[in-house]
């Protein structure tokens, strides 16, 4: 589903101007990483997508809906949202009921609710915990549960705020794999993260924000290789990029296998020369 921000401004009641004229359009099925330092406006930007915040000026469009005309609950059917802290939403006595909450709000049929929640639980690897109390799960499992609760809503757009935080290698890989799968199935994905290694591995496009502006927008390979740009945005470059730069390689591939190929080619050429 297409998303667009047209000349969007937003100022908090404290007087902080969080978004200062944002123009951004995201095509259906894109996987976009939004990066930038704390307070750059990333979370504010995505909260406009489901009407948790309303722009002071400009227009935010989700699919063919102008968000100004829809409530958050309505927009929730189009934009799924994974918040940073799962404890701010879990309340049910059983994991399965927790996952069913969103789909039920959206008015799915009982059969669809059951099938969507069960498959979401399987996807995140919590199917065995369906009857457990959410608060008996470990913190990283609660985050996966919150992800399942979002997935079960079956939205065409998915917004994730720091999904990889607090996850071990297995959890990180699992979340990455889930996102990749959703991406191939055509979901539009927005990923907010300080973890550029994670972004580099899974996202296609990167939007760099600073002070309520968009500093740069383009393919992750292009954006993440620009050290000075990342420095200006106060984000830490991915490890492979730093390694490539330390080796003075001409390119900076973002995935391990690509890096290995590029490195051996470059190394061979250098030896010959």
């Amino acid at each position: 589903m297409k998303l667009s921000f047209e000349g969007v401004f937003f100022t908090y009641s404290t007087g902080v101007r969080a978004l200062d004229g944002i123009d951004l359009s995201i095509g259906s099925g894109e996987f976009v990483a939004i990066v930038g330092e704390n307070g750059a406006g990333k979370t504010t930007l995505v909260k406009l997508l489901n009407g948790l915040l309303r722009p002071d000026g400009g227009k935010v469009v989700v699919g063919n809906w102008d968000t100004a005309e829809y409530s958050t609950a309505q927009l929730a059917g189009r934009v799924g949202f994974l918040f940073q802290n799962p404890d701010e939403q879990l309340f049910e006595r059983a994991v399965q009921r927790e996952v069913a909450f969103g789909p039920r709000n959206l008015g799915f049929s009982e059969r669809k609710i059951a099938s969507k929640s069960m498959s979401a639980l399987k996807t995140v690897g919590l199917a065995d915990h369906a009857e457990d109390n959410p608060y008996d799960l470990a913190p990283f499992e609660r985050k996966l549960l919150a992800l399942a609760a979002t997935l079960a809503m079956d939205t065409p757009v998915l917004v994730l705020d720091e999904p990889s935080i607090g996850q071990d290698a297995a959890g990180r890989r699992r979340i990455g794999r889930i996102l990749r799968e959703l991406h191939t199935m055509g979901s539009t994905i927005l990923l907010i993260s300080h973890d550029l290694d994670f972004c580099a591995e899974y996202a296609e496009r990167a939007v760099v924000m600073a002070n309520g502006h968009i500093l740069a927008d383009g393919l992750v390979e292009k954006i993440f290789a620009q050290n000075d740009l990342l420095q200006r945005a106060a984000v830490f470059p991915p490890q492979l990029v730093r390694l490539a730069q330390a080796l003075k390689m001409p390119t900076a591939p973002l995935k391990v296998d690509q890096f290995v190929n590029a490195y051996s080619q470059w190394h061979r050429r250098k030896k010959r020369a």
Partner: protein
Amino acid sequence: MHGTLFVSGNSGLHRLHPLTKLALTFLFLVFAATLPNLLWLLAAFVILLVPMSAWGGLLRPFLRSCLVVITPFVISLSIIQGFFTPGETPLFHLAGFVLTGEGLLAGLTVASRILMALGGALLLMLSTRPDMLMLALTRSGLPGSLAYVVLTSIQIFPRFQERAQVILEAQQARGLEIKVNIFKRLRLLVPLMGPLVLSSIVDVEERAMALEARAFSRPGRKTSLLALADSPGQHLARWGLLLLMLALIGWSIWRAISS
């Protein structure tokens, strides 16, 4: 400080030692209980409390808070006392009930006693940081854990409000419609209150551990980052205020016996 009545400032009132202000608050409480009639009470309010709030640069918030709290008391007490106290001077008839002058006066007197006590408490709260007050109290012997309980209960409300807002957003993002009719509202309670209560319980444990990690229950005297300024004059004044309170209480007991 967020979520309390405290208004920051650097006036003489702000700089008074918290215990001095607490003594004043108690004095005004004694005033509220012992001054004989409406005239005395109002005079004390206008001559003492109002100038003190002005001294602290707090006149506007002081009067506004007084007005907000006292108005419902004035109305309800005037009606109840006015209609149900027998008296010689009927002012007003309504459906067989008579509003008497004596009743109205009695109602207003009770309201002015409340105003007096309230004003004293407001002066303290508007001009004193709660942590400073607690520090002063622990220095003079209040158990530290009790001070902590008082302080956290003051500070928990804004935290609660913030968290409630975040939860509201999270559940709306999961499709919860909150603009529904009054009967459906009840059903919103569980998804909104659930996380609030549960996460607060989780919080308690973490908070307890964090406190212990910072030697909360270590025996012995603790030092504080906050500095309390006191002076021999204020120390003397507090004893003076205490004596004045005792004298007022004695006077009012003597009046009660002799009448």
